[in-house]
């Protein structure tokens, strides 16, 4: 598109009072761009002024210098136009009130050594806005040449079948892949199931059987039993999936990345590329590389991982005080469920009736936690199984020992219903021992609600053990991705394929693949079915987004994709390694192969690239670099005591909104700072920092999200990667005889608006102490 520029400056909301608008117009006109001002640009008349230029003069590249882009977002949205919002209101005028940063008096103006910091700030922001609008392009949607809208559901248990039905009932073709010969999963084998609906008081027959019938009858659902996924290659909308029989070894089994210890030589030095590839091939012998597409593979557009859980099997010596391993009459809740599916509850040791059954919910030994991998559901299961005891024997007695009865929410109703049964005894208590006592077991507990130690003669002891996600044992999804076959960060979530985001529970760091059910957390059937619907929605949403050529969450609707200038690529593989979403693979030589529909547009690859060959249509090394270069850096040639210039690269998701609130609260910070919002700190390329310092700016700070286990970075790794890069840049600075302290990164949250002024000002003070950048003026 050939650009026709227009710059529009609003004088409202105090901007016109605080700033010399004419002088700002001069800055615009220096660049030979047309400049218009208005007292109330977001009002009808102001907007009409802009629209008139668009319609009559063909203006299509607009710089709107007014309020923050977070407000009036619709007012200043013009189809087919590039719009750059220059934040004069929150960013300059409101956060630098004239009471604190007075204008120059007429007298002061006479002396050329005086300057107006706030005015300088506004003028710089105009220059920066004009620089950006010149460098960016209007994005166009990225469309796949061929696209599949079929959904693959991994796992044919209640969750998988529910997800399949949910997607099929919305009009999508679904294939269920189940490793067993029969659909139904764990829940099919149960005698009874926990209730699905209010009043949540009574057990119901398992729904799995009905679900099996429903999926079998559904014209849009294709079922593959005794089948597993060997690999999933490609990207959303265009996955190529290789299926196989369980246990089979095939050439399209997914290869694994080399483990860390194999990537280095005997001295701990990273191996050269050729040697690495050699080792990789050896390590994955018999398996084709991830980039070799299976010609017989099946096409899918999105995947739902509903591979479920396995029962927690305690190690032989794990709970000796509970009699585990010593007596066959101490079993897990899962083993009891298997037993009652066949018949009555009996003692494994001698097959006799087990009428007195003790259920233990917490392993004790000083902890009041439940067994590992449990949840609300494991408490509910104890209540359910207690009812089995009562069903099987009129004189049967069930004793439930818990530390905390965790029937949260409406599950409480089920607990209350169980309390009505005189044959079910429930108490808080810590089990101190389970020992053989004749043909039965003697169970001792302390700290009970009865105020004393209790001893019970039991026929059977049942441990309320948890549900281990299958991702604990195996990556399961088998992605043919260079970063590896599994989801990332599962270790943070005890190996559940869970999300770190409370707000966005279906985030998996692998676009187009959504987990549901027991693979995510210990969930009841009801919760798993709900979860299945959510995962199905996300799979469909991903397909429709790919179909429109736009990004999914969190940059939903973004049309840009990373573009690579391959001629200059040095095959360093940093983009492949650092992408938080595993969107990039690389070939034998190490040349990156981007997968645009896996991409979330965070720009981490752009930040990582030392050759600076990665860019987005509206966000590039050049667009931000030009903004940095547009900042005027006064030197002693200009003023006897030139002001400092400090660059702030600020995460647009959290830190930038917080800075807007600073403006709203009229909280001030140094007027020598220039702020540039970035998509994520992960997208910050060190060249911007080097550019800033080499043009004489005195310091650079980054404001971004918290990292670590409770990370808040919307792109998971961005702020963490930035931190690593900033550490490295410190060395580079010292080689230039610049102090490391000139670059800093701070973790802030969106509600830190009261703290950010202090953070910025103390950084500025630190720079002032170091003195001006020695490169200034060169």
């Amino acid at each position, binding site marked *: 598109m050939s650009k026709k520029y227009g710059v529009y400056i609003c004088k*409202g*909301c*105090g901007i016109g009072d605080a700033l010399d608008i004419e002088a700002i117009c001069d800055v615009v006109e220096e660049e030979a761009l047309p400049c218009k001002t208005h007292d*109330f640009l977001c*009002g009808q008349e102001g907007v009409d002024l802009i629209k008139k230029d668009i319609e009559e003069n063909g203006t299509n590249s607009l710089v709107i210098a007014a*309020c923050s882009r977070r407000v009036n977002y*619709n007012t200043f949205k013009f189809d087919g136009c590039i719009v750059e919002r220059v934040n004069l209101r929150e960013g300059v005028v409101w956060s630098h009130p004239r009471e604190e940063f007075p204008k120059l008096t007429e007298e002061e103006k006479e002396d050329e050594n005086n300057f107006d910091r706030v005015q300088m700030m506004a003028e710089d922001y105009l220059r920066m806005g004009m620089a950006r609008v010149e460098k960016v392009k209007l994005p166009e949607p990225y*469309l796949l040449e061929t*696209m*599949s*809208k*079929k959904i693959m559901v991994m796992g044919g248990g209640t969750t998988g079948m529910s997800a399949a039905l949910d997607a099929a*009932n*919305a*009009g*999508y*073709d679904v294939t269920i892949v189940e490793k067993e010969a029969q659909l139904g999963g764990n829940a099919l084998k149960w005698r009874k199931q926990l209730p699905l609906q*209010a*009043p949540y008081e009574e057990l119901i027959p398992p729904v799995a059987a009905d679900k099996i019938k429903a999926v079998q009858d559904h014209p849009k659902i294709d079922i593959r039993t005794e089948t597993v996924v060997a690999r999933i290659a490609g990207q959303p909308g265009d996955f190529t999936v290789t299926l196989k029989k369980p246990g089979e070894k095939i050439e399209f089994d997914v290869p694994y990345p080399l483990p860390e210890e194999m990537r280095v030589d005997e001295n701990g030095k990273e191996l050269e590329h050729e040697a690495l590839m050699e080792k990789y091939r050896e390590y994955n012998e018999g398996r084709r590389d991830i980039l070799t597409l299976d010609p017989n593979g099946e*096409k899918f557009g999105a995947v739902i991982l509903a591979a479920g859980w396995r029962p927690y099997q305690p190690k032989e010596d794990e709970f000796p005080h509970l009699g585990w391993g010593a007596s066959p009459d101490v079993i897990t809740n899962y083993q009891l469920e298997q037993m009652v599916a066949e018949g009555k509850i009996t003692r494994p040791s001698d097959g006799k009736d087990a009428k007195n059954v003790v259920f233990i919910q917490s392993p004790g030994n000083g902890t009041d936690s*439940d067994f590992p991998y*449990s*949840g609300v559901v494991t408490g509910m299961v104890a209540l359910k199984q207690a009812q089995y005891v009562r069903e099987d024997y009129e004189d049967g007695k069930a004793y439930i020992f*818990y530390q*905390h*009865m*965790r*029937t949260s*929410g*409406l*599950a409480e109703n089920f607990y*209350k219903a169980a309390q009505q049964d005189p044959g079910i005894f429930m108490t808080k208590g810590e089990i101190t021992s389970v020992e053989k006592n004749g043909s039965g077991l003697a169970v001792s507990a302390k*700290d*009970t*609600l009865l*105020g004393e130690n209790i001893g019970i003669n039991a026929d059977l002891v049942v441990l309320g053990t948890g549900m281990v996600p299958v991702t604990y044992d195996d990556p399961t999804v088998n992605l043919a991705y260079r970063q590896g076959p599994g989801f990332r960060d599962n270790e943070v979530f005890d190996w559940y394929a869970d999300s770190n985001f*409370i*707000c*966005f529970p279906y985030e998996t760091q692998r676009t187009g693949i959504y987990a549901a059910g027991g693979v995510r957390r*210990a969930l009841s059937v009801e919760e798993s079915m*709900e*979860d299945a619907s*959510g995962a*199905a*929605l*996300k799979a*469909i*949403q991903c397909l*429709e987004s790919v*179909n429109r050529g736009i990004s999914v*969450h969190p940059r*939903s*609707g973004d049309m840009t994709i990373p573009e690579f200038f391959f001629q200059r690529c040095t095959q360093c593989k940093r983009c492949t390694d650092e992408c938080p979403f595993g969107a990039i693979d690389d070939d034998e030589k190490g040349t990156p192969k981007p997968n645009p529909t896996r991409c979330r547009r965070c720009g981490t690859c752009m930040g990582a690239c030392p050759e600076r060959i990665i860019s987005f249509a509206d966000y590039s090394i050049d667009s931000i670099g030009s903004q940095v270069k547009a900042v005027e850096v006064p030197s002693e040639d200009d003023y006897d005591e030139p002001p400092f210039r400090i660059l702030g690269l600020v995460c647009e998701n*959290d830190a930038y*909104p917080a800075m807007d609130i600073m403006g*709203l*609260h009229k909280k001030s910070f140094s007027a020598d700072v220039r702020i540039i919002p970035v998509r994520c700190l992960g997208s910050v390329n060190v060249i911007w920092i080097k550019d800033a310092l080499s043009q004489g700016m005195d310091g650079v700070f980054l404001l971004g999200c*918290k990292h670590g286990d409770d990370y808040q970075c919307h792109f998971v790794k961005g702020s963490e990667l930035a931190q690593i890069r900033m550490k490295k840049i410190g060395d580079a600075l010292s080689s230039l005889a610049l102090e490391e302290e000139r670059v800093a990164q701070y973790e802030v949250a969106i509600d830190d*608006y*009261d703290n950010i002024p202090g953070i910025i000002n103390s950084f500025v003070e630190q720079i002032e102490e170091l003195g001006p950048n020695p490169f200034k003026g060169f």
Partner: protein
Amino acid sequence: MSEAQGAPLSGSIMVVGGGISGLTTALEAAEVGYEVFIVEKNPYLGGRVAQLKQYFPKLCPPTCGLEINFRRIKDNPRIKFFTLADVEKVEGSPGNYNVSIKLNPRYVNENCTCCGACADACQSEIPNEFNFGMDKTKGAYLPHEMAFPARYVISPQIIGTEDAKRCKEACPYDAVDLDMQPGTMDLNVGAIVWATGWEPYDAAKIDNLGFGQYPNIITNMMLERQAAPNGPTGGKIVRPSDNKAPESVAFVQCAGSRDENHLPYCSYICCMASLKHATYIREQYPEAKVYIFYIDLRTPGYRYEKFYGKVKEDENVEFIKGKVAAVEDGGNGRVTVVAEDAVSGEKVQQTVDMVVLATGMQPTAVNAKLPAADLKYTEEGFIINDLEKGGMFATGCANKPADVMMSNQNATGIALKAIQTMMKR
């Protein structure tokens, strides 16, 4: 271009309630491609979570996720939202509902630039509902600084006064319209999702716990507002009688919940909320003692167990298993919690500077009847979903007590149920 046909992407969905559940349902459906209308009774979106300082267990600010969601709304032309709006009438059947919506006047029009001149000019103050009346706000106000839409509101309480005129005169952009009248709007939608959320249970109804009787007994949501940086005390937790830093705080769990006389169910969030509140207090006051009186600590699952484990490590946080029988005057503005330790059987009396009642959640629909005849409710007022019939659904805490993560999970799935309703027609 594609191998298979997907959903036809026609038909629209109305989501009632713009809290976290409603926002999630609306956005997830809109990002599939459907038209969505959000109807919100408050002048801002975000609902209950906008009042929270932090989410458990990550201890991160809810405005972070809200900001992303608001950006998704800004970028998505398929979502339209109405604030200060009530659904008045719903008629029709799945796939075809005619809805009447009442639009209450904001007295501020779209000219508002959020400059704040009206609030500066306004002299009168009204109780700040966002802060549960713990402070006051001007009669012309921005509900909170991150409010979306970022537009001022003029309270009906000052309409007709000189103050209202002052606001009008102060506005340089002619954004104050004191003659604004309530309006109605009719919509035809294929599906309706009730995301009407919850209210904190009225602590004054629990006679034995002293709320309203002693100033230093507050609710958990009040503590949340105190701790929030944009709250009535600027983030300082203080005891209301004298704004003194509390040296000891007792939490009364199940204040109303799990109680046949009040809320017979468990409110799901209060145990984790109190553990979170303990971290707020302990961070501000390194010497303060915290006592948590509970029936069961409901911190199920790996995340919550871990969080509980961390709080338990703090020696200044003491857990007492016992239902609180009464909260009484402890002299000098202090309050005494009386309970029976369920394990030792001994009577416990703990005098503290401040008591926090961990009140539970009651579905909003209990006190504000929804205008849809064929909704089914539990005895406690939660809406029971009829997934077979479809058409209308409840999500989040309108459906059952839940935390934010479960609500979002549920709300995402309900978006698909609403879409399926359109498919069936």
